[in-house]
């Protein structure tokens, strides 16, 4: 299934022109979300979640300043859903952010909800379901916001969007039940069945010689980071996660799940060959490498359709561009020292049900009964107290205008791409792997860059650490979480509650949002446990399984005591029996037997040894 995108750029340019003319237009999408069948990798046909009866879902496009309206109807029948527009600040519209039980209620099948917001940013984004690990079933696609003031617009002849993704043949519900399972105590994540480029296994891009293309690359996968390289071409990075950067040349880039990168790609001046480009899944994330897994996906830049498509060459080593060194185009300087510092240690461990979970510090996230936004809106002054949000939503309350540092220590041996909703953050520190935990008193570790790189999703290296800084300038409820969907399902999530009292003053939650809650029977007032009277009483709140007991439990002590008692009694019985005399009956019997034995021996001696031969010995 080769897709030629040659007509897309023309369309884009046309649309761009239109958007430029119509200042602050409105873009409307009607999304009917339902199951369809698809076989994108050519290996296996499965049911996938599509939009309006088709899959893959459409790439959304808008222009900076536009109002975007998405009319969502859930027609899945058997699952709830939500939509999250990844990377958008949703300033003033935090209820349009999308995470279920956080800023809204899950949309039941048959229900409708309108996402309505303006886009004040530009660059490369994407949208996906933010409900119960659902998006890898197919409901994820790029979202490009054009910018008439794009700093490199004069260099660009055409633009393309290329998505990369891992792909599973099983549905998430079944994969999650096998993953968060006591028989998977190490938490080995399901390994994808294949990789996709633009949701196909055979992607080709028609290009013309001597042109410069702007490529929006998005990793819309669930798990695997992707190494990307174009044979014979360099990439000139100009944007990451919606932040324009100084041009930076790269031969190979790495984009984790949920990261985006736009780059200028200048084509060759001749059309004598076609070129392969590769998206290679980061196999260091996989606990096992199935024999039949093809982790390299190959696409082609087609200069000349008459010529063959070359096979991608092997690369000796994966040496990707370090995104930490990028310089934002606006040169935004380092924010002042933090007013509040949040330290989170990433831990993978098991709870009392024996299943694998993920923890920030000692807390594995569990959705509250009342979506966090509704708690913030209905608990009055107490909304500033993190307690009302429940321990297991792991809340951090920020005051408006605060500068906040998040220190993230990876106590796990895997890579984790961390994503903060509602913000770009400055990246102050990001160590290599095995660097240990961050030490703020060590001046060699606090030598922060004067103009830090910014983005919304950053990879934390195995057993390393990172420090990010942002300004609390966007009142709302924002999740901070690992964007590996498996780890989200395991609870690697914290909740940032930003200026809740401001939210109470400024926010009016639309009626259709409340209707969605009412349809699902989800309470929309009170603390995390739904208590509206005493908001500090969290009795009945959702909670994770109890921790594993560290040593002997009462049950174990009782069992041990009984075992010891049984052994002592048993040995007492042995001693009692062993030291007792022969017993009256046996004595009589023995005497008789000995007598008979002697008698028999005597009689046999008389008979002679005639019957000896009958007996087999040895």
């Amino acid at each position, binding site marked *: 299934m080769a897709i030629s995108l040659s007509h897309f750029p023309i369309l884009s340019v046309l649309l761009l022109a239109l958007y430029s003319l119509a200042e602050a237009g409105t873009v409307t999408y009607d999304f009917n979300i339902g199951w369809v069948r698809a076989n994108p990798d050519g290996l296996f046909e499965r049911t996938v979640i599509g939009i309006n009866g088709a899959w893959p879902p459409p790439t959304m496009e808008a222009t900076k300043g536009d109002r975007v309206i998405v009319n969502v109807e859930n027609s899945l029948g058997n699952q709830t859903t939500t939509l999250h527009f990844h990377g958008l600040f949703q300033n003033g519209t935090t209820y349009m952010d999308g995470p279920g039980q956080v800023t809204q209620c899950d949309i039941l099948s048959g229900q409708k909800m309108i996402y309505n917001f303006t886009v004040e940013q530009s660059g490369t984004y994407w949208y996906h379901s933010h409900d119960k690990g659902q998006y890898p079933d197919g409901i994820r696609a790029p979202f490009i916001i054009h910018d008439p003031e794009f700093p490199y617009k004069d260099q660009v002849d055409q633009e393309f969007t290329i998505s990369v993704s891992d792909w599973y043949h099983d549905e998430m519900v079944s994969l999650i039940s096998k993953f968060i399972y*006591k*028989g*998977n*105590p*190490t938490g080995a994540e399901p390994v994808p069945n294949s990789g996709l480029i633009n949701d196909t296994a055979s992607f080709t891009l028609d290009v013309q010689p001597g042109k410069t293309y702007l490529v929006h690359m998005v990793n819309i996968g669930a798990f695997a980071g992707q190494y990307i390289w174009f044979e014979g071409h360099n990439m000139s990075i100009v944007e990451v996660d919606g932040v324009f950067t100084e041009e930076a040349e790269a031969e190979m880039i790495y984009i984790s799940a949920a990261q985006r990168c736009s780059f200028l790609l200048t084509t060759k001046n001749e059309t004598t060959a076609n070129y392969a480009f590769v998206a290679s899944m980061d196999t260091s994330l996989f606990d096992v490498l199935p024999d039949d897994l093809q982790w390299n996906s190959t696409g082609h830049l087609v200069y000349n359709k008459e010529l063959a498509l070359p096979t991608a060459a092997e690369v000796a080593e994966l040496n990707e561009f370090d995104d930490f060194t990028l310089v934002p185009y606006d040169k935004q300087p380092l924010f002042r020292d933090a007013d509040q510092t949040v330290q989170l240690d990433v831990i993978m*461990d*098991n709870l*009392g*049900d*024996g299943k*694998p979970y993920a923890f920030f510090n000692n807390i594995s996230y569990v959705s509250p009964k009342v979506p966090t936004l509704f708690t913030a809106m209905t608990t009055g002054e107490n909304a500033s107290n993190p307690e009302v949000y429940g321990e297991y939503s792991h809340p951090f309350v920020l005051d408006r205008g605060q500068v906040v540092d998040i220190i993230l220590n990876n106590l796990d041996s895997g890579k984790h791409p961390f994503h903060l909703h509602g913000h770009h953050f400055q990246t102050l520190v990001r160590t290599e792997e095995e660097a240990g935990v961050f030490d703020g008193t060590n001046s060699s570790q606090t030598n922060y860059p004067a103009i830090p790189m910014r983005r919304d999703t950053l990879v934390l290296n195995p057993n390393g650490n990172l420090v990010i800084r942002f300004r609390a300038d966007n009142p709302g409820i924002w999740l901070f979480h690992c964007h590996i969907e498996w780890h989200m399902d395991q609870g690697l999530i914290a909740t940032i509650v930003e200026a809740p009292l401001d939210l109470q003053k400024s926010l009016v939650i639309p009626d259709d949002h409340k209707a969605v809650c009412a349809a699902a029977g989800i309470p929309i007032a009170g603390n995390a446990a739904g208590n509206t009277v005493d908001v500090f009483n969290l009795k009945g709140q959702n909670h994770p399984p109890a921790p*594993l007991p*560290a*040593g*002997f*439990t009462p*049950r*174990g*002590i009782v*069992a*041990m005591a*009984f*075992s010891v008692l*049984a*052994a002592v*009694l*048993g*040995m007492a*019985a*042995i*001693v*009692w*029996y*062993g*030291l*007792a005399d*022969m*017993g*009256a*009956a*046996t004595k*009589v*019997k*023995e005497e*008789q*037997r*000995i*007598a*008979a*034995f002697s008698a*028999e*021996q005597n009689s*046999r001696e008389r008979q002679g*040894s005639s*019957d*000896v031969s*009958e*007996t*087999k*010995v040895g």
Partner: protein
Amino acid sequence: MTVNVFAVPVFFVVFRETLEAAVIVSVLLAFLKQTLDGPNRDQSTYKKLVLQVWYGSALGLLLCLIVGGGLIGAFYGIGKDKWGATEYYWEGSFSLVATLIISILGAALLRVAKLQDKWRVKLAKALEEKSVTSAGRKGAFKRWCEKYAMFLLPFITVLREGIEAIIFIAGVTFSAPAAAVPLPVICGLLAGFAVGFILYKGGSSSKLQIFLVVSTCLLYLVAAGLFSKAIWYFQQQDWNNIVGGDAAEVGAGAGSYDIDRSVWHVNYGNPELNGGGGWGIFNAIFGWTNSATYGSVISYNVYWIAVIIGFILMRYNEQKGHLPLMKAKKQDAPVMSDSSADGSGILEAKKNTKPTTTVTPALGREISE
């Protein structure tokens, strides 16, 4: 860093396996010495039975070397630890067989104290005299087992412990320098033999009854632990099948056991991990486990309850001449009828219900030949 020539886990595992084997062998030898050796006793039977013990040990050793070698060969050949995949089924089965044999033999040993001198004759009769073909196949097998108990017990014990040790050492040498293996193996063997020898010497010189009582207690402790461990092995193999690998590889912590079957689990003292250190020896003698399951705890207690009931019944039978709720035996029954069964002391409970069999004329002379 000094050169690693002493892999501690290897020492512990060899010591532990040797000790388990040595306890059995030394108790048997001491018993034989006590009952059959000395002036006015049956020297030839004694020698014969001692030889049986040594033959059993030697054959067990030989077989475990062959099987172990084959397994290691297969490991290299196929590139997969075939043994490891079903290891616990094997260990569990071996443990069950060992429990059974130790339990039967333990009772028999304890009765010796009472039968004193008569045992010498009885043992000779029981072990040497019966015709293998004198009853049905089942009876024949039983008698065959009785006859060669002195061979079978050390044979199975040495085989089981030996294979365990070989597999473990093989596993360690795949990851540790080979130079670190021989010394701890030798030390472990020597330490095991030493303890066994002390047990043998102590057993030989102390008062027979006390020795028998003490050693029987020890044997039943081992047997109770083995029985409990057998159940544990089967359950742990289930768990390994669920996890899809050796759960012991994830260490002693979460995930190394099935939480739904767990009675207690402490993250230390795993006897299966790296030889277990002192915990491994604790495990060998008392059946310690850091991760007890309902199955292992209940089976341990049930075993002891069965032992207590068994001895009470045996005592009752000794006093009354029949088991509770059973008819007293007629005094005029053929006297020889159950001498063979009684002589080996095996499961009184069954004996009185069995049809009487005619024993082939004894071969006192043949034994002495």
